[in-house]
Protein backbone atom coordinates (compact mmCIF):
# COMPACT_ATOMS: atom_id res chain seq x y z
CA UNK A 1 0.00 0.00 0.00
CA UNK A 2 2.80 2.32 1.00
CA UNK A 3 4.62 1.42 -2.17
CA UNK A 4 1.57 2.17 -4.25
CA UNK A 5 1.25 5.61 -2.72
CA UNK A 6 4.94 6.25 -3.17
CA UNK A 7 4.80 5.07 -6.79
CA UNK A 8 1.87 7.28 -7.70
CA UNK A 9 3.29 10.37 -6.00
CA UNK A 10 6.79 10.03 -7.39
CA UNK A 11 5.67 8.85 -10.80
CA UNK A 12 3.79 12.11 -11.08
CA UNK A 13 6.82 14.13 -9.97
CA UNK A 14 9.10 12.19 -12.30
CA UNK A 15 6.86 12.76 -15.26
CA UNK A 16 6.35 16.37 -14.29
CA UNK A 17 10.10 16.90 -14.01
CA UNK A 18 10.72 15.23 -17.31
CA UNK A 19 8.08 17.16 -19.17
CA UNK A 20 9.17 20.45 -17.68
CA UNK A 21 12.74 19.67 -18.64
CA UNK A 22 11.77 19.22 -22.27
CA UNK A 23 9.32 22.04 -22.26
CA UNK A 24 11.21 24.79 -20.45
CA UNK A 25 12.67 27.53 -22.60
CA UNK A 26 15.30 28.35 -20.05
CA UNK A 27 17.94 25.63 -19.60
CA UNK A 28 18.11 26.34 -15.88
CA UNK A 29 14.54 25.17 -15.50
CA UNK A 30 15.32 22.16 -17.65
CA UNK A 31 18.13 21.25 -15.30
CA UNK A 32 15.93 21.67 -12.26
CA UNK A 33 13.25 19.50 -13.86
CA UNK A 34 15.74 16.79 -14.59
CA UNK A 35 16.98 16.95 -11.05
CA UNK A 36 13.44 16.42 -9.81
CA UNK A 37 13.08 13.36 -12.00
CA UNK A 38 16.36 11.97 -10.73
CA UNK A 39 15.31 12.32 -7.12
CA UNK A 40 12.09 10.51 -7.92
CA UNK A 41 14.03 7.70 -9.56
CA UNK A 42 16.18 7.43 -6.43
CA UNK A 43 12.99 6.83 -4.47
CA UNK A 44 11.98 4.12 -6.93
CA UNK A 45 15.38 2.48 -6.53
CA UNK A 46 14.83 2.30 -2.80
CA UNK A 47 11.43 0.71 -3.20
CA UNK A 48 13.08 -1.82 -5.52
CA UNK A 49 15.66 -2.75 -2.89
CA UNK A 50 18.44 -0.84 -4.58
CA UNK A 51 19.74 1.05 -1.60
CA UNK A 52 23.28 1.62 -2.73
CA UNK A 53 22.22 2.54 -6.25
CA UNK A 54 19.77 5.05 -4.84
CA UNK A 55 22.49 6.72 -2.82
CA UNK A 56 24.78 6.86 -5.83
CA UNK A 57 21.95 8.24 -7.90
CA UNK A 58 21.47 11.12 -5.49
CA UNK A 59 25.14 11.88 -4.95
CA UNK A 60 26.51 11.36 -8.47
CA UNK A 61 23.61 12.24 -10.68
CA UNK A 62 21.47 14.70 -8.81
CA UNK A 63 24.52 16.06 -7.10
CA UNK A 64 27.65 16.05 -9.20
CA UNK A 65 26.39 15.67 -12.75
CA UNK A 66 23.57 18.15 -12.43
CA UNK A 67 25.86 20.61 -10.71
CA UNK A 68 28.17 20.30 -13.66
CA UNK A 69 25.27 20.93 -16.00
CA UNK A 70 24.22 24.02 -14.11
CA UNK A 71 27.79 25.21 -14.11
CA UNK A 72 28.00 24.98 -17.88
CA UNK A 73 24.60 26.58 -18.30
CA UNK A 74 25.75 29.51 -16.24
CA UNK A 75 29.02 29.63 -18.16
CA UNK A 76 27.56 29.85 -21.64
CA UNK A 77 24.65 32.09 -20.80
CA UNK A 78 21.17 31.57 -19.50
CA UNK A 79 19.63 34.69 -20.86
CA UNK A 80 19.10 33.42 -24.38
CA UNK A 81 15.63 32.00 -24.59
CA UNK A 82 15.13 29.61 -27.37
CA UNK A 83 12.43 30.33 -29.92
CA UNK A 84 10.15 27.42 -30.63
CA UNK A 85 9.85 27.60 -34.37
CA UNK A 86 10.97 24.51 -36.21
CA UNK A 87 13.23 24.91 -39.27
CA UNK A 88 13.67 21.29 -40.20
CA UNK A 89 10.75 20.13 -42.35
CA UNK A 90 8.64 17.28 -40.97
CA UNK A 91 10.74 17.10 -37.81
CA UNK A 92 7.77 17.46 -35.45
CA UNK A 93 5.26 15.19 -37.19
CA UNK A 94 7.95 12.58 -37.73
CA UNK A 95 8.92 12.74 -34.08
CA UNK A 96 5.31 12.42 -33.03
CA UNK A 97 4.69 9.39 -35.25
CA UNK A 98 7.94 7.65 -34.36
CA UNK A 99 7.68 8.17 -30.65
CA UNK A 100 4.04 7.16 -30.71
CA UNK A 101 4.90 3.97 -32.49
CA UNK A 102 7.75 3.32 -30.08
CA UNK A 103 5.79 3.94 -26.92
CA UNK A 104 2.85 2.00 -28.28
CA UNK A 105 5.05 -0.91 -29.23
CA UNK A 106 6.78 -1.05 -25.87
CA UNK A 107 3.61 -0.72 -23.85
CA UNK A 108 1.71 -3.29 -25.91
CA UNK A 109 4.57 -5.72 -25.53
CA UNK A 110 4.82 -4.94 -21.85
CA UNK A 111 1.16 -5.69 -21.40
CA UNK A 112 1.99 -9.27 -22.30
CA UNK A 113 5.25 -9.60 -20.38
CA UNK A 114 7.86 -7.11 -19.20
CA UNK A 115 10.57 -9.62 -18.60
CA UNK A 116 11.52 -12.93 -20.08
CA UNK A 117 13.53 -15.72 -18.53
CA UNK A 118 13.14 -17.69 -15.32
CA UNK A 119 13.56 -16.61 -11.74
CA UNK A 120 16.33 -18.83 -10.47
CA UNK A 121 17.38 -17.60 -6.98
CA UNK A 122 14.55 -17.75 -4.52
CA UNK A 123 15.95 -15.12 -2.22
CA UNK A 124 14.84 -11.58 -3.08
CA UNK A 125 17.57 -9.15 -4.00
CA UNK A 126 18.85 -6.69 -1.50
CA UNK A 127 21.15 -4.05 -2.92
CA UNK A 128 23.27 -3.39 0.15
CA UNK A 129 26.81 -2.08 -0.17
CA UNK A 130 28.15 -5.52 0.80
CA UNK A 131 26.09 -7.34 -1.81
CA UNK A 132 26.87 -4.86 -4.54
CA UNK A 133 30.54 -4.79 -3.61
CA UNK A 134 30.77 -8.56 -3.65
CA UNK A 135 29.19 -8.72 -7.05
CA UNK A 136 31.20 -5.82 -8.44
CA UNK A 137 34.57 -7.15 -7.32
CA UNK A 138 33.66 -10.76 -8.00
CA UNK A 139 31.83 -11.46 -11.19
CA UNK A 140 32.22 -7.99 -12.65
CA UNK A 141 35.76 -7.12 -11.73
CA UNK A 142 37.06 -6.98 -15.26
CA UNK A 143 34.39 -4.58 -16.61
CA UNK A 144 34.92 -2.56 -13.46
CA UNK A 145 38.61 -2.15 -14.25
CA UNK A 146 37.73 -1.22 -17.81
CA UNK A 147 35.52 1.58 -16.56
CA UNK A 148 38.53 2.94 -14.68
CA UNK A 149 40.32 3.11 -18.04
CA UNK A 150 37.31 4.79 -19.59
CA UNK A 151 37.27 7.46 -16.93
CA UNK A 152 40.95 8.19 -17.39
CA UNK A 153 40.46 8.56 -21.11
CA UNK A 154 37.49 10.82 -20.57
CA UNK A 155 39.47 12.99 -18.18
CA UNK A 156 42.39 13.18 -20.59
CA UNK A 157 40.07 14.06 -23.47
CA UNK A 158 38.47 16.80 -21.45
CA UNK A 159 41.79 18.27 -20.50
CA UNK A 160 42.86 18.16 -24.14
CA UNK A 161 39.70 19.96 -25.17
CA UNK A 162 40.15 22.55 -22.48
CA UNK A 163 43.73 23.25 -23.49
CA UNK A 164 43.70 22.97 -27.26
CA UNK A 165 40.07 23.52 -28.23
CA UNK A 166 38.24 26.75 -28.54
CA UNK A 167 40.68 29.22 -29.98
CA UNK A 168 41.34 29.08 -33.68
CA UNK A 169 44.99 30.07 -33.41
CA UNK A 170 46.03 27.10 -31.37
CA UNK A 171 44.41 24.38 -33.40
CA UNK A 172 44.97 20.78 -32.51
CA UNK A 173 41.45 20.05 -31.36
Amino acid at each position, binding site marked *: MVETVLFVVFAITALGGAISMVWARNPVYSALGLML*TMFSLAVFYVS*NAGHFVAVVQVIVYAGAVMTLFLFVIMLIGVDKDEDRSEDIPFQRPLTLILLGLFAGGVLVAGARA*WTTGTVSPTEPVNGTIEAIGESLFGDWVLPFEVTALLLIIAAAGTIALAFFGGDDEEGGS
Partner: protein
Amino acid sequence: MTVTPGWYMALAAVLFVIGAAGVLLRRNALVMFMSVELMLNAVNLTFVAAGRQLNLLDGQVSVLFVMVVAAAEVVVGLAIIVTVFRRRATASVDELAELKG
Protein backbone atom coordinates in the same frame (compact mmCIF):
# COMPACT_ATOMS: atom_id res chain seq x y z
CA MET B 1 -3.40 -3.21 -5.66
CA THR B 2 0.35 -3.96 -5.43
CA VAL B 3 2.97 -2.30 -7.45
CA THR B 4 4.61 -4.80 -9.85
CA PRO B 5 7.90 -4.20 -11.63
CA GLY B 6 5.85 -3.80 -14.77
CA TRP B 7 4.57 -0.48 -13.48
CA TYR B 8 8.04 0.83 -13.11
CA MET B 9 8.91 -0.35 -16.53
CA ALA B 10 5.90 1.29 -18.06
CA LEU B 11 6.85 4.50 -16.30
CA ALA B 12 10.43 4.08 -17.57
CA ALA B 13 9.14 3.66 -21.13
CA VAL B 14 7.20 6.91 -20.85
CA LEU B 15 10.22 8.72 -19.42
CA PHE B 16 12.37 7.30 -22.23
CA VAL B 17 9.96 8.62 -24.84
CA ILE B 18 9.90 12.04 -23.21
CA GLY B 19 13.69 12.06 -23.26
CA ALA B 20 13.72 11.03 -26.89
CA ALA B 21 11.30 13.81 -27.68
CA GLY B 22 13.67 16.25 -26.01
CA VAL B 23 16.55 15.03 -28.16
CA LEU B 24 14.52 15.23 -31.33
CA LEU B 25 12.80 18.53 -30.74
CA ARG B 26 15.06 20.80 -28.71
CA ARG B 27 17.91 22.53 -30.45
CA ASN B 28 19.80 23.67 -27.38
CA ALA B 29 22.72 21.30 -27.06
CA LEU B 30 22.56 21.37 -23.27
CA VAL B 31 18.90 20.45 -23.16
CA MET B 32 19.49 17.70 -25.70
CA PHE B 33 22.22 16.42 -23.49
CA MET B 34 19.99 16.46 -20.43
CA SER B 35 17.39 14.58 -22.43
CA VAL B 36 19.96 11.91 -23.15
CA GLU B 37 20.60 11.71 -19.42
CA LEU B 38 16.90 11.29 -18.87
CA MET B 39 16.82 8.41 -21.37
CA LEU B 40 19.72 6.77 -19.57
CA ASN B 41 17.92 7.16 -16.25
CA ALA B 42 14.81 5.59 -17.68
CA VAL B 43 16.84 2.60 -18.77
CA ASN B 44 18.40 2.43 -15.31
CA LEU B 45 14.98 2.20 -13.82
CA THR B 46 14.13 -0.78 -16.00
CA PHE B 47 17.35 -2.46 -14.91
CA VAL B 48 16.53 -2.09 -11.26
CA ALA B 49 12.93 -3.19 -11.72
CA ALA B 50 13.89 -6.18 -13.83
CA GLY B 51 16.58 -7.15 -11.32
CA ARG B 52 13.98 -7.16 -8.62
CA GLN B 53 11.56 -9.25 -10.64
CA LEU B 54 14.22 -11.84 -11.52
CA ASN B 55 15.82 -11.77 -8.07
CA LEU B 56 19.16 -10.81 -9.61
CA LEU B 57 21.59 -8.23 -8.28
CA ASP B 58 23.14 -7.85 -11.72
CA GLY B 59 20.53 -5.27 -12.64
CA GLN B 60 21.80 -2.91 -10.00
CA VAL B 61 25.41 -3.55 -10.95
CA SER B 62 24.51 -2.66 -14.51
CA VAL B 63 23.05 0.58 -13.27
CA LEU B 64 26.36 1.44 -11.68
CA PHE B 65 28.15 0.80 -14.92
CA VAL B 66 25.67 2.92 -16.85
CA MET B 67 26.28 5.69 -14.35
CA VAL B 68 30.01 5.52 -14.85
CA VAL B 69 29.64 5.64 -18.60
CA ALA B 70 27.16 8.48 -18.31
CA ALA B 71 29.50 10.40 -16.05
CA ALA B 72 32.33 10.02 -18.55
CA GLU B 73 30.00 11.01 -21.34
CA VAL B 74 28.85 14.09 -19.47
CA VAL B 75 32.38 15.22 -18.82
CA VAL B 76 33.47 14.91 -22.43
CA GLY B 77 30.16 16.11 -23.84
CA LEU B 78 30.10 19.23 -21.74
CA ALA B 79 33.71 19.92 -22.59
CA ILE B 80 32.79 19.71 -26.27
CA ILE B 81 29.83 22.02 -25.80
CA VAL B 82 31.98 24.55 -23.98
CA THR B 83 34.63 24.32 -26.68
CA VAL B 84 32.09 24.82 -29.43
CA PHE B 85 30.65 27.74 -27.55
CA ARG B 86 34.05 29.32 -27.19
CA ARG B 87 34.51 29.14 -30.94
CA ARG B 88 31.03 29.82 -32.23
CA ALA B 89 29.24 31.54 -29.36
CA THR B 90 26.23 29.33 -29.85
CA ALA B 91 24.73 26.30 -28.18
CA SER B 92 22.26 25.58 -30.95
CA VAL B 93 22.96 22.35 -32.78
CA ASP B 94 21.10 23.55 -35.87
CA GLU B 95 23.77 26.15 -36.48
CA LEU B 96 26.48 23.54 -36.43
CA ALA B 97 25.80 22.13 -39.87
CA GLU B 98 29.27 22.28 -41.49
CA LEU B 99 28.99 18.65 -42.55
CA LYS B 100 26.05 19.42 -44.84
CA GLY B 101 26.63 17.56 -48.03
